């Protein structure tokens, strides 16, 4: 048995009354030691399970023994209910008599319990709660396993996997897009799900009104839609006659046939579901579809995976190089949705737990100080016949009252805190809409409160009741001293607080360093002083054809007119256009061919043939379409060659610009300028590109992601990729104030083009939001912990100083220097802090490893952070000790001696 486990069991034993312990304590310890060894041999997990069960059993049995003793001291009388009532009344009375103490205690516990409860409510809703569907554990996400990772499904592979697999009750594919939807002339962006047949079977969603989409409608891609209940209420006025109001989207008029209940929206936030076009993307390599399935009854995920891998092998054999799919990847839907935020949330919950420990240590210290002050009262009650068990019970009840009050306050703080948390959250937290204070959260708060009460009660009652009656009464309240053991416990608790605080501070420090380092990274483009307009121009019919012409030509007109209008706005010096703005996640990438002659490839078949014959010609890059103005507006520097200019008119050979990393990685030691590139696979245009310039690298996926090799085609020559959503960027004097003017211009040119206008600064800043979120939260926990630790140290040192005031007085009277006394007090304080710092550093060294995934450019064991935090904590602690130390020197000898 380790010393720690022995110590813990000793604490647990305290749950039992002294009489019981005296008789059975030794046997119980021996039994525990033997059981511990037995479980230790079975591994850490089993050992942890054993400790948890033992702790619960000891606490419950101990409490039962106190309530209904099997072993009693002679003369025990009154029934337990009477005693409990008395104890409760007494606890209430004593706490009312010292409102300051009660307030501080409840506030401290409230902060600790509130923090833990708030984080728990997030963890519960996001990680623990099952998805809001029938038998959600059977829902599975599927991907094509491709070389080097996983990818969305192609239409044909999806169909084959669906038809050949027997492991699923239903499998469906879907796509989702934030799309302008018009109802009665009012346009707004709605998340629209384009779904295949069986989609609603997978989720077992039945409409609350109307009907599902039929198989026939799915087969023909009929213009019908199921809408979410919230959409039906807000946009369709909750009209029970569903067919009455059609909705328009992407040039299509849809008839609403059903209303899906709220809370079952999948993909998250979807408001409208329509059949996906059955003809779209009859391909094996166009990775366009997300796939979900529901496992058949009795089929495990493992069994399904086995079957899927066999199917994938079959398909690969059958189609060879025509398919990219080498495997089928399957994962539980919940895991896929929340897996990425799990580490961050668990780390924050852990941090909240540390804060709770600090709060508990602080309150225990307060209770001990008060216990010491109440020794006379305790001794008197003991002298008139109160049993030790009774007194200990009294302290337990008091702790319980305080903890429950703290828990209630904590719950209030948690409710407020969760709102604040979600407001702070950058909108990247899955299932955030499900977060709230509910029954499991209440149970958690209550459980934490009870646990806190048990810890506080056991620590304080055992200390206070241990004193000898005579000794205390003989002192007759002359001093407020506690026993040497109490002093030791208090010092220990203070060091514990310092240790836990240090861990939190180191964590916050590491995150802060990461944040600073990341902020210093050059993204390769301007990060402020620009206005970014995301516009969506549907590629077909939704436009009034008379006004702007037809299809792509119409789209181009709208875009050109818009650009002209924006250029004319006051102060605007440059307008750029691109198909995928940095940090938008909209960009696509793909393989290109390096040609020897411009006419080497004349059609897509030729492209594919050449790629297969001579793979050395292949290259891969992020594919962008941009205008010259884009590079100027975004401050992306020209490294060599030129940008697009007047030479590159639509009829001229198509010009391209590549990023430095693409030039270096694809043509090492050569000049990229003049190279001929075939990239017709991206937009269907088979005319080759000639590289005319090299520009700087950009970090399009965020500051913490390396720049991707990027290819830029000329927007004037290849506008096809600008269909749908594109971005405009505006720079110039005071351009960030032009939001309303931009909106007005858009309304003027294309009233039903929805646009989103944001400042570049906002976009850039929200790319760091998740990091900021973790940092702010961990920082807040650390700050509260520091405050609690400092007050804790202050309290303990004050107490020690008060205890020795007579000694100081005598020494002062005999001519001791004030500096000596201050130094002595500070050394006492320093000892506590140093012990805490040493232990805390060791714990932090182990604990901060879990942070590794959230760090950037700094190691989890970064020495400078550890040293800085240790020094800071020591300095603050010394300051907290100095105040009582200075007070010690002002003791009036005469007064102190007389006390």
């Amino acid at each position, binding site marked *: 048995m380790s010393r720690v486990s022995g110590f813990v069991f000793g604490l647990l034993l305290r749950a039992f009354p002294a009489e019981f312990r005296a008789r059975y304590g030794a*046997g119980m310890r021996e*039994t525990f030691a033997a059981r511990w060894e037995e479980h230790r041999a079975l591994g850490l997990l089993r050992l942890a399970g054993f400790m948890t069960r033992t702790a619960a059993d000891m606490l419950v049995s101990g409490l039962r023994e106190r309530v209904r003793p099997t072993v009693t001291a002679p003369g025990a009388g009154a029934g337990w209910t009477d005693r409990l009532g008395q104890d409760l009344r007494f606890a209430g009375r004593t706490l009312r008599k010292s409102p300051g103490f009660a307030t501080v205690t409840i506030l401290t516990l409230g902060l600790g319990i509130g923090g833990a409860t708030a984080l728990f409510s997030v963890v519960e809703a996001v990680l623990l709660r099952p998805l809001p569907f029938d038998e959600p554990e059977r829902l599975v996400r599927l991907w094509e396993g491709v070389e080097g990772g996983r990818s969305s499904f192609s239409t044909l592979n999806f169909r084959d996997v669906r038809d050949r697999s027997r492991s699923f009750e239903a499998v469906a594919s879907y796509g989702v897009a934030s799309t302008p939807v018009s109802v009665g002339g009012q346009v707004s962006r709605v998340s629209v799900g384009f779904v295949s047949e069986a989609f609603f079977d997978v989720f077992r969603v039945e409409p609350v009104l109307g009907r599902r989409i039929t198989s026939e409608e799915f087969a023909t891609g009929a213009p019908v839609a199921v809408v979410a209940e919230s959409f039906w209420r807000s946009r369709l006025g909750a009209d029970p006659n569903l067919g009455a109001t059609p909705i328009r989207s992407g040039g299509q008029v849809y008839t609403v046939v059903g209303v899906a209940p709220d809370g079952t929206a999948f993909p998250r936030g979807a408001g409208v579901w329509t059949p996906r076009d059955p003809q779209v993307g009859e391909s094996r390599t166009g990775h366009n579809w997300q796939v979900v399935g529901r496992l058949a009854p009795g089929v495990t995920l493992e069994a399904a995976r086995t079957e899927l891998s066999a199917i994938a092998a079959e398909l690969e054999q059958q189609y060879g190089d025509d398919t990219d799919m080498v495997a089928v990847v399957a994962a539980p839907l919940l895991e896929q949705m929340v897996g990425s935020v799990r580490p961050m949330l668990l780390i924050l919950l852990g941090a909240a737990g540390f804060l709770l420990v600090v709060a508990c240590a602080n309150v225990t210290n307060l209770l001990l100080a008060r216990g010491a002050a109440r020794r006379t009262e305790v001794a008197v009650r003991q002298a008139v016949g109160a049993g030790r068990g009774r007194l200990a019970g009294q302290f337990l009840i008091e702790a319980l009252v305080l903890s429950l009050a703290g828990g209630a306050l904590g719950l209030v703080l948690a409710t407020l805190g969760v709102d604040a948390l979600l407001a702070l959250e950058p909108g990247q937290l899955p299932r955030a809409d499900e977060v709230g204070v509910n029954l499991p959260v209440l149970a958690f708060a209550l459980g934490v409160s009870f646990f806190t009460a048990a810890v506080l009660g056991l620590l304080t009652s055992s200390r206070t009741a241990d004193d000898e009656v005579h000794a205390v009464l003989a002192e007759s309240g002359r001093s407020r001293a506690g026993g040497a053991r109490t002093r030791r416990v208090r010092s220990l608790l203070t060091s514990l607080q310092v240790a836990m605080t240090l861990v939190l501070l180191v964590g916050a420090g590491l995150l802060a360093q990461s944040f600073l380092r990341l902020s210093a990274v050059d993204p390769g483009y301007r990060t402020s002083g620009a206005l970014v307009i995301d516009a969506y121009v549907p590629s077909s019919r939704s436009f009034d054809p008379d006004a702007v012409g037809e299809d792509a030509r119409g789209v181009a007109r709208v875009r050109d007119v818009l650009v002209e209008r924006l250029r004319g706005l006051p102060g605007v010096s440059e307008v750029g256009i691109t198909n995928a703005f940095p940090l938008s996640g909209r960009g696509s990438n793909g393989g290109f061919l390096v040609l020897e002659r411009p006419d080497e490839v004349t059609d897509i078949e030729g492209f594919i043939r050449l790629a297969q014959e001579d793979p050395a010609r292949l290259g891969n890059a992020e594919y962008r379409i941009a205008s010259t103005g884009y590079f100027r507006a975004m401050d992306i520097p020209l490294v060599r060659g030129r940008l697009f200019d007047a030479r590159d008119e639509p009829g001229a050979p198509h010009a391209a610009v590549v990023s430095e990393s693409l030039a270096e990685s694809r043509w090492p030691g050569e000049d990229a300028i003049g190279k001929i590139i075939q990239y017709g696979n991206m937009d269907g245009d088979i005319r080759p590109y000639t590289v005319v310039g090299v520009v700087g690298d950009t970090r399009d996926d965020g500051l913490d992601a390396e720049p991707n090799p990027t290819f830029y085609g000329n927007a004037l020559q290849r506008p096809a990729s600008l269909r749908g959503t594109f971005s405009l960027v505006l720079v110039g004097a005071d351009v960030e104030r032009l939001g309303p003017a931009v909106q007005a211009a858009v309304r003027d040119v294309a009233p039903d083009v929805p646009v989103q206008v944001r400042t570049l600064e906002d976009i850039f800043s929200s790319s760091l939001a998740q990091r900021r979120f973790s940092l702010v939260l961990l920082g807040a926990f650390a700050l509260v912990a520091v405050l609690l630790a400092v007050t804790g140290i202050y309290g303990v040192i004050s107490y020690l100083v008060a205890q020795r005031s007579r000694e100081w007085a005598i020494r002062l009277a005999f001519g001791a220097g004030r500096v000596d006394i201050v130094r002595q007090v500070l050394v006492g304080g320093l000892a506590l802090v140093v012990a805490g710092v040493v232990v805390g550093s060791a714990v932090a060294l182990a604990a901060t490893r879990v942070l590794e995934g959230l760090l950037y450019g700094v190691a989890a064991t970064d020495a400078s952070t550890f040293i800085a935090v240790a020094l800071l904590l020591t300095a603050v602690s010394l300051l907290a000790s100095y105040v009582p130390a200075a007070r010690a020197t002002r003791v009036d000898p005469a007064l102190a001696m007389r006390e």
Partner: protein
Amino acid sequence: MSEGREREPAAPLSATDYHVLMVLAERDLYGYAIMKAVEADSGGAVSPGIGSLYRILARLSSAGWVEEAPAPSEAPTEHRGHPRQYYRLTPAGRQALRDESRRLESVLRLARERKLLAGGSP
């Protein structure tokens, strides 16, 4: 209840009480050995926690069914310098165990008659 003490184990006995009496009917044992014997007898179905076990021992002791016993001569009498406490069944305890066993037997007989056991129809 006006009296806060548990004087006697309630009849019928709890499964754990019964098993503890049962293993002590075999031979005198100390705490950990009782726990292991109960687990073995019940095939792991009954596995009391440490606090629970000692409360049961205390309760059975105060009922006069179990008493503290000297260590058997062949067994180690000490554990890390502490005398190891053995427990044994008293005659009253043996009687209680017998009574409870009879009661269980009659219950079992009833279950057989009603064809609840050995493949009988429900």
